[in-house]
């Protein structure tokens, strides 16, 4: 399957080509060529998936294969960084997800970005992103993953800051890069610790075999925990940064300053789930050697899921609602991984259910969340605003956007038989297996999800009549077709026998719904939707029992619980003003002052003794005589 190399090379070429030609290319040519390349990549990805899932099962277990691997850099006697392609069920699934969403975004952007300045730049960056993301999921070793991890980070930076003359966009892109870079620092240290013990970066070498390669890292302890625990926890911090887990989530809502299709591709469907993918990739280590870290992941995920859902309830910018929703949903995926208790998934042993559910949810979420973002983009283009208060009653004006958006809302709220219902239900089931408390927590979060999504839906499409001056128009076909396509996947996605393809140990599994959990989930979802319908379907009327807009809770949630302000305090007030500024002063005045002081002393000293060279003959004669006498005296005495 050597042709998989093209999946990486084509977007790279497209990036370089469109990037170098730049303005010499017409908008049309840049858009079309970018989209055509992506079409080819998508077809190749589908071909890969087909090829893989028809041929690579041995003894009933999906095998991992490496069609391509080459050394990129030697770092030491035994350590070397490779670049290659690893195909296994999750990487093949990610190929399909990334290429599908990316293609939809490419097509959609032909309409959405039409006439924008820097259109060519936009398409060239999209190609760069696709290349980097593909390289990340296909990585054969953890260092390759880190390399592409940084590259998706920079593509995200470039695309968030696409409207670079807007100060908010510049600030948001900077924030996104620096927050994730901060997390990547821990990832890198984790890699350094891990690789010191394993003496290899290669996934298969680390996780294959009997795990003896990892036991040396287990034996070494530092501050009460084994080196392996430290390494895996550090790696997870990296994952948490990219996947916007609390408290590193602050960059994602701001990232919405980028063009909306970018938010759909990078900040909803693909890059932000890289953290989930990383934990899934290293899952055998987490589950086999550091289960305590895995539990920690579950708690971080669970907290983030509810925390973000609560914030989403009160936001008024529709993209911000979706951003917090994304954070919350990624929390679900993390929880699912965290609550797993074994690699196995058979009717007898459900320990690995969470892993499968997490990957399934990653897949369905990518589809319906990118659909939601693209739908939001269509709305934003129609009314020229991000804010809910400028919307309402749009269902008549934007019929296609409305229906597809509704499909996505139903899916994320968890209404059967849509895709989101099935995958989320598996997660909640796994959570109940872990502990009842965790199950209830996730059920409540799911209820919140249904509520805020339908609040969003009703406030955009229902409620008061649209009052803007210009009558909103439905978007062009280049935008509606991707919406319809994604809606179709969302409709039927739940029927994919996902467990047949992706499980922790590679053995196929048939998904069976747990009817108790399913019923509870549906009821909770309906309650959430019902509440939203009651409150927002007609002209908004606020029930007296709701917290008022001036109440502390509402304000706190609206201001994202002041986490951003806390960061600002630390970075601006403490690091910039209290560390960097004094340090700069210290350098100029103390360290450099010492040097200048030395020069000053030299100057003074020469000033003081220069009188000797007075040029006065009598003075010279006196000194000469005195010197001669002294020497003579010396000679006599000795």
């Amino acid at each position, binding site marked *: 399957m050597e042709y998989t190399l093209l999946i990486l090379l084509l977007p790279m070429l497209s990036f370089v080509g469109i990037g170098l030609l730049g303005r010499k290319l017409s908008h049309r040519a840049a858009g079309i060529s970018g989209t055509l390349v992506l079409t080819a990549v998508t077809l190749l990805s589908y071909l890969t998936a087909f090829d893989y899932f028809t041929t690579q099962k041995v003894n009933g277990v999906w095998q991992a294969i490496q069609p391509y691997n080459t050394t990129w850099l030697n770092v030491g006697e035994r350590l070397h960084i490779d670049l290659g392609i690893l195909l296994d069920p999750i990487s093949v699934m990610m190929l399909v997800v990334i290429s599908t969403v990316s293609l939809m975004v490419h097509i959609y952007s032909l309409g959405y970005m039409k006439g924008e300045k820097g259109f060519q730049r936009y398409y060239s960056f999209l190609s760069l992103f696709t290349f980097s993301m593909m390289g990340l999921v296909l990585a054969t070793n953890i260092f390759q993953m880190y390399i592409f991890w*940084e590259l998706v980070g*920079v593509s995200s930076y470039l695309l968030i800051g696409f409207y670079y*003359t807007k100060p908010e966009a510049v600030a948001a892109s900077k924030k996104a890069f620096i927050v994730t870079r901060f997390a990547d620092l821990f990832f890198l240290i984790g890699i350094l610790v891990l690789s010191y013990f394993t003496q290899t970066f290669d996934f298969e070498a680390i996780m294959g075999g009997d795990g003896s390669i990892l036991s040396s890292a287990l034996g070494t302890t530092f501050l009460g925990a084994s080196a392996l625990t430290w390494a895996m926890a550090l790696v997870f911090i990296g994952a948490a940064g990219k996947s916007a887990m609390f408290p590193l989530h602050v960059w994602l809502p701001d990232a919405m300053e980028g063009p909306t299709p970018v938010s759909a591709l990078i900040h909803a469907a693909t890059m932000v789930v890289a953290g989930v993918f990383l934990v899934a990739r290293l899952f055998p280590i987490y589950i086999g050697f550091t289960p305590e870290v895995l539990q920690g992941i579950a708690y971080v995920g669970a907290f983030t899921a509810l925390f973000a859902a609560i914030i989403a309830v009160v936001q008024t910018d529709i993209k911000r609602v979706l951003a917090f929703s994304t954070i919350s949903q990624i929390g679900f995926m993390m929880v699912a991984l965290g609550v797993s208790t074994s690699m196995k998934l058979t009717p007898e042993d459900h320990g690995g259910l969470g892993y499968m559910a997490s990957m399934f949810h990653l897949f369905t979420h990518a589809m319906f969340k990118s659909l939601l973002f693209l739908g939001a983009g269509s709305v934003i283009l129609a009314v020229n605003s991000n804010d809910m208060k400028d919307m309402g009653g749009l269902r008549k004006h934007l019929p296609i956007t409305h229906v597809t958006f509704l499909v996505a809302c139903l899916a994320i709220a968890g209404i059967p038989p849509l895709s989101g219902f099935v995958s989320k239900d598996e997660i909640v089931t796994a959570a109940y297996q872990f502990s009842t408390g965790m199950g209830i927590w996730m059920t409540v979060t799911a209820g919140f999800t249904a509520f805020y999504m339908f609040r969003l839906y009703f406030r955009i499409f229902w409620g008061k009549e649209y009052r803007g001056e210009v009558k909103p128009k439905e978007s062009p076909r280049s935008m509606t077709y991707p919406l319809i396509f994604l809606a179709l996947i969302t409709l039927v996605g739940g029927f994919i026998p996902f467990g047949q393809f992706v499980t922790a140990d590679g053995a196929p599994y048939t998904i069976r719904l747990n009817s108790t959990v399913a019923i509870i989930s549906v009821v909770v979802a309906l309650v959430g939707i019902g509440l939203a319908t009651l409150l927002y379907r007609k002209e908004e009327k606020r029930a007296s029992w709701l917290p008022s807009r001036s109440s502390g809770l509402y304000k706190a949630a609206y201001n994202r619980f002041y986490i951003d302000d806390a960061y600002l305090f630390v970075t601006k007030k403490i690091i910039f003003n209290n560390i960097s500024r004094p340090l700069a002063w210290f350098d100029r005045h103390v360290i450099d002052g010492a*040097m200048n002081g030395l*020069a000053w002393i030299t100057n003074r000293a020469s000033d003081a003794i220069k009188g000797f060279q007075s040029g006065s003959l009598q003075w010279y004669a006196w000194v000469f005589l005195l010197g001669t006498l002294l020497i003579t005296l010396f000679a006599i005495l000795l």
Partner: protein
Amino acid sequence: MNFLIVFILIPLLMLFALFATRNRKQVLAVMVTGSSALVLASIYLTVRYILLRNSGVAETMLFTSSYTWFEPLNIGFSLGVDAVSVTMLALSAIIVFTGTFVSWKIKPLTKEFFIWFCLLSLGVFGFFITTDLFTLFMFYEIALIPMYLLIGIWGSGRREYSAMKLTLMLMGAASLLIVGILGIYFSTGAVSMNLLDLKEIDIPLNLQLLFFTLTFVGFGVLGALFPFHTWSPDGHAAAPTAVSMLHAGVLMKLGGYGCFRVSIGLMPEATEILAPVFIVLTAIGVIYGALSAIHQTDLKYINAYSSVSHCNLVLFAILMLTRTAMTGAVLQMISHGLMTALFFALIGMIYERTHTRMITEMGGLMKVIPFLGVSFVIAGLASLGLPGLSGFAAEMTIFVGAFENADLFRRVLTIVAVSSIVVTAVYILRMVGKFLFGPMQNRKHLASIDAVWYEKLAVVILIAGIAYIGMFPLGLSNLISDSLAVIIK
């Protein structure tokens, strides 16, 4: 005749030719021809070197030869190169070549400027081909003196103060160095000044400790060793563009190279003992330089502090005493050389257009000068260690190599050094965000024209180097690593 002589002959010929020139055109013709010849010579040398190594020649140094100069003191002129010096020569040639194009419009006294510039490069090339302590020191001095005039006459801002400061601090360092060098010579029985011979002779440990400190600090000052780095921000800020390029790009590497060849190469036992002290200093320097850069508003100061951070990382890596870290150090020297030269070149070009280097007085320039803007962003990304550009390969080699040391002390300090990747991102993005992005600050800047051909040429060559090393580091890294194998296990 030894081929390496070419590297001093060309600058010498250029000097004579420059004396004879009558107008600017002739000066530029001489400079372009001469620096192209240097580039070709360094390419030829690199190819020959690789071919020789591939054919199985295993000596430490290739192209060796020795001429006696002053017999009574064993002062000779010995030549020889290994992969480290070959790559340094190539780097110097590229910087001299691009520096010429960047100084295309230098005024006043074009001819005199280039004469001193040539003398400076003569010192640099001589330094990298020699394997003899005395000539090493001599070329070091030759490279230093023109700096004073170049900054004092063609500089900007507080140029006289800066020129004086830079020269005095480096001269002070040189005085430590000469004591160290003579000490080594006499304590080994005064039989030879050749590094290759000296390596075979053991120096008593107590003397090693003294001479290691003297030479390491002596060279370290040039390599911006914390806390002796303060000449660098002032010096670089005041220097004319091409001089900043050559100075930060190549001259600062003389420091790292000297530490590696002389201090560590000749006194391994003292290195073991004293390394912790300097590891602490350099680790502080890495993070300190980066933190100081956050608060600067002058583009040249930002880059100068950034250089302090990156160059301290070179010294840090050398002191880790593992082959991987040392390979990384050499990669970092090359990478930083290209990167910082690119930065200074671009800053000079931008200054010519905006007449300010204060990021607070600029904004939205990307729209007006996209070529320079994009190049600046690329330089910035290289500096913050983006994969695919040279900084990443170098830094990762250093970090992995440093982590090979199992003791907690080095581990912790490595982590301190690693954390600079975050701080670097902060100051780079702050700088780029302030002056390239955002709204226009000064309407006068709207009239700026984008880069012209000679500027583009210089920028493209430097970026190509950065990108090539960043994407295909394997060949270069193996070349260096193999050559270091004989020096360190």
